[in-house]
């Protein structure tokens, strides 16, 4: 159990002691950085954007009313920062045929994917993630990497609960299609 809660740190900062922010950096820095790094895929950019996220949080702390948890509020900032950075890059993302998605089962790709070693599986997953639109990447990373609940994801992204569930379902199918496509290409 942590000695000080997020609210304790926030109250300290709101009372005029910025050193209280170190507690929040220690608690959330690694998670936010891991999420952003997985999105932008560049060490320097990830560090700079993580700093941006924390600076924005610090500037907005006086307006933080605690309606949602600090973690959710911070990840909302991280989500918008990472997604807008990805949009700025004007990178093209893969559009997957709707019929392919409809046919894709909601289970692990079989065949060659199951047989390749772990490192190769992770490499393929990483490549598949990179082909998803930024919003989809963020959603799936929140769910699996940050292990956020659907309610927290909805609050962080501004989407409705049902929308988050539907989108997560579609993203899983997209990943299935992408990983299967990679398998086919490798076999050719």
């Amino acid at each position, binding site marked *: 159990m942590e000695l000080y809660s997020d609210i304790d740190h926030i109250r300290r900062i709101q009372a005029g002691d910025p050193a209280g922010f*170190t507690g929040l950096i220690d608690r959330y820095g690694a998670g936010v*950085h891991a999420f952003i*790094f997985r999105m932008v895929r560049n060490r320097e950019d990830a560090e700079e954007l993580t700093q941006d996220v924390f*600076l924005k949080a610090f500037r907005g702390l006086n307006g933080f009313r605690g309606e949602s948890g600090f973690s959710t509020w911070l990840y909302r900032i991280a989500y918008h920062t990472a997604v807008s950075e990805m949009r700025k890059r004007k990178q093209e993302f893969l559009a997957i045929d709707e019929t392919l998605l409809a046919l894709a089962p909601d289970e692990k790709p079989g065949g060659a994917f199951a047989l390749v070693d772990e490192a190769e599986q992770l490499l393929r997953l990483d490549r598949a993630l990179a082909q998803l639109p930024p919003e989809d990447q963020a959603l799936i990373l929140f769910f*699996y990497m940050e292990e956020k609940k659907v309610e927290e994801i909805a609050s962080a992204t501004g989407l409705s609960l049902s929308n988050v569930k539907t989108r997560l379902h579609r993203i899983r199918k997209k990943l299935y299609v992408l990983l299967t496509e990679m398998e086919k290409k490798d076999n050719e």
Partner: protein
Amino acid sequence: MNKQEKETDWLKPLFRRLPAEELPASFREALMGKILRETAKRKKTNERFELLAVLLASLGMMGLAIGAILWAGPPRMVWRTPEWVSLPFYSYIGVLLLLLLGGDHWLRRAYRKRHPD
């Protein structure tokens, strides 16, 4: 997706094994440096705003006073010179004031010598 489904989810173990990029050791220090600089800057800006507010309020009051004088005319004032009989009293008060000021100055100097910090 419920908890049980998440447990049997094929993507979950894969994501868990994805290597995480470590946060640089200097991250906290660099970020806190920025935050402290920003706090100092914000404090300075607030002080400037407060000074500006005091200045504007003073100018407003002065303007109001000048306006009132122009509107109602200058106030009638009678200048009185003190009578010579009260001169010893004022002299006594003046000398007392000088003595007290000198004493205060001497005591402060002695205190600073004993406590240089």
